[in-house]
């Protein structure tokens, strides 16, 4: 959903809510990583109990407004909606957003006082997973201090384009949540981590990724070449003042690259080309993001591999080679692209954006055992190789969804709570 789409009216919400079949043990609840009681909140919209509906959503998902706006429903709740067997799935995310926004426009419901069960937990990282964990721990009565080098918000704050999520929508969540734990603006370096380790009974790492993976090609240092996170962050700060020139090439194929391409187009680029080395079928993107990029006029060149970024001082283009898909598959199960000899060509570009993935920026990550993909390895309780230190979100699974990160935080909070309860 982008800001162009208007939020449901009361009447639209009611009519849509009436379509819900109210399944027992509903598959949508199972499919939602935070297990929002979807039929319950929809029945509340139907009966006119909008505040109750928002409460049901927020009881399960702390980042209620953010997820209501940008959660990729087609991979979660709506993908399993039984109504789709009759006609079309219920617009669950839209109804969720309608409920939380309706509440946010009034006064937030009074939350009952949380119990006090002692013990102190440090959460490192103020993104969705850190916030999700901190709020759940607060609900369980633990005292939480959340550390972030900047301000609360993480990926939604820093790099999700404002045409997808407005600052106000994010603030609606943060305003509600931030009163339940203390927030410290402090970068947790390797040295500081040791101090925290002594001071707190448990630590949750929600450090996210934050470091752009380089292409490793010639010309990457030319002016006008941006790693994607830097580009998206700058675009959010500078807004329309940012200049990208007439022609932009984005190297990527994931959701973040689509965000970058659509952003470049909105910043006034005449032509935005996204190059991807495989075909559309292999793209790991959400339909809504792809549609949005195409609606903005982004051109996608499939089967195209970058070879070199060309230019003197400033970028002038990118040299590419066509690919073909081999029968062999890589570990992700997708066919491996093979370059086609003699198919080289140059795409002119004033700006080149590299969006081929991210790795963990935080240096404390070196203390922990990693999995094969380089992310922090955790057990089923989200505990890392270090006792009493837990981790979740993108730092354990790579670029994921907001709702997945919140769910990690929530589940880890319960594991932390249980372990702390056993400690004297």
């Amino acid at each position, binding site marked *: 959903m982008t800001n162009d789409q208007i939020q449901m009216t009361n009447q639209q919400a009611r009519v849509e809510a009436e379509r819900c079949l109210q399944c027992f043990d509903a598959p949508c609840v199972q*499919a939602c990583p935070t297990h929002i009681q979807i039929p*319950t909140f929809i029945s509340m919209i139907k009966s006119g109990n909008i505040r*109750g509906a928002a*409460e049901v959503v927020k*009881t399960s998902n702390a980042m209620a407004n953010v997820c209501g706006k940008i959660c990729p429903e087609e991979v979660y709740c709506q993908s*399993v909606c039984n109504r789709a067997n009759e006609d079309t799935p219920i617009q669950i995310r839209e109804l969720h957003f309608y409920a939380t926004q309706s509440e946010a426009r009034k006064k937030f419901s009074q939350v009952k006082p949380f119990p006090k069960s002692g013990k102190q937990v440090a959460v490192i990282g103020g993104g969705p997973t850190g916030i999700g964990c901190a709020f759940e721990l607060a609900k369980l009565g633990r005292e939480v201090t959340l550390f972030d080098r900047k301000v609360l918000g993480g990926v939604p704050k820093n790099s999700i384009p404002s045409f997808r999520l407005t600052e106000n929508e994010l603030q609606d969540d943060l305003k509600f949540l931030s009163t339940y734990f203390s927030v410290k603006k402090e970068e947790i370096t390797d040295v500081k981590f040791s101090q925290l380790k002594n001071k707190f009974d448990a630590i949750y790492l929600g450090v996210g990724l934050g470091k752009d993976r380089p292409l490793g090609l010639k010309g990457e240092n030319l002016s006008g070449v941006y790693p994607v996170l830097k580009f998206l962050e700058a675009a959010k700060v500078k807004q329309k003042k940012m200049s990208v020139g007439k022609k932009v090439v984005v190297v990527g194929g994931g959701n973040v690259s689509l965000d970058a391409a659509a952003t470049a187009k909105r910043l006034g680029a005449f032509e935005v080309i996204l190059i991807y080395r495989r075909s559309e079928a292999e793209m790991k993107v959400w339909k809504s993001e792809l549609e949005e990029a195409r609606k903005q006029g982004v051109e996608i060149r499939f089967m195209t591999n970058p070879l070199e970024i060309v230019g003197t001082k400033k970028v002038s283009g990118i040299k590419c080679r066509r690919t073909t898909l081999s029968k062999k598959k890589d570990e992700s199960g997708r066919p491996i692209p093979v370059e086609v000899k003699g198919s080289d060509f140059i795409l002119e570009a004033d700006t080149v954006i590299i969006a081929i993935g991210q790795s963990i920026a935080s240096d404390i990550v070196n203390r922990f055992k990693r999995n094969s993909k380089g992310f922090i390895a955790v057990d089923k309780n989200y505990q890392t190789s270090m006792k009493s230190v837990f981790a979740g979100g993108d730092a354990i699974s790579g670029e994921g969804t907001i709702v997945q990160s919140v769910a990690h935080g929530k589940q880890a909070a319960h594991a932390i709570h249980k372990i702390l309860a056993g400690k004297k």
Partner: protein
Amino acid sequence: MKKSKVVSENIYSEIPIYPQRDLSYDFLGLHWENPFILAAAPSTDELDIVRRGLQMGWAGAILKTTSIEGNIVDLAYPMMSTFNHDGKKLFGMGNIDLISEHHIDKVEYNVRKLKKEFPEKIIAASIMAGRKEDWQRLVERLEKAGVDFIECSFSCPQGNIGEDPGKMLAQSISATELTAKWVKEAARRVPVSIKITPHVTDIVDVAKAVKRSGADALTAANSLQALMGVDIKTFVPYPQLNGKSTYSGMTGPAIKPLTLRTISEIARNVDIPILGTGGASTWSDAVEFMAVGAGVVQYCTAVMHYGFRIIDDLKSGMSHYLDEMKFKSVKDIYRKALPHIATHDELPRRKIRSHINEATCIQCEACYLACRDGGHMAIDRNPNRIPKVDWERCVGCGLCEHVCPVDGCIEMKVFK
């Protein structure tokens, strides 16, 4: 259709973060946790089922109507049928169920068991008999078992096991008064409520008879006798039992307006506590029932359709409603609508005209058509499809407002 597989994760129970508002109050000499109680029906017939309902937050249950041992309950299946309307299923539900197959011995046992497990909940029982001794025996045995109140079914419309088959007890004023007296005589400790039928010429006369009998309350009203529909190919009405059918008792949203009228008419004329039942499915329905004079509201069809879980929305919706209205207790709703009900000749006569909001009009011209063919030909068409009301011809009947698909687009305003 191919679906992605849902993997059930290890789900922990959510921690409630919002306080539950106290919805409790006193009525009929009893303390009610909230105004939502389970009506005598299949949902209150089996111990395991009632138990689940009470655990989920219902204030109490009226166990399905029972009778003296030896009474034969001759059920016929299928017993359920529905009235579907405009694509909505179960707008009305019909049943040809009878009273419980459990006799008083089993119900006594259930009452004892439930009262022990749920001492704070209201455990009531519904009874039906023919002879005086049987009515009184049922009351005495239930009192002894520890029941909180007794409801007497004078009005089961779908079959009758009384002495006058085909006629409901509550259709006779003298029989109602006499039988209610027997029941009240036998009840030493607990209140009794007489469940009446709306199928009478004057509901007030019946209510007055109940009042005269000394009974503590009445339950208004029961299901409505209905023929649920006819199969237009075979001409066998529903439900179909091998080529035969019979009249059903209809319940559900379709009968709510009829029940509201029954309750308000009694409340306006007779000073007697009323337990409301028949057509309530949401928290706002309960508000309406209470506003016209019901002390508590019984639910049945909505539970049979959506399960006991509807109690979550009933309680949450009622709490937020009370907050919004700045009401201290659900009792503040009680009888609030009654002063606004008048006879037709008492109604104010004002000059009213229809106003169409051009900004929200969606140009469907439904109002134009309705007024042309069913009103006063007072709406004119326009090239831009936004209808215009001719205030000379408009009398302010309000039909257009109700056929308009957009909330609040057409309003009736005083004409100056």
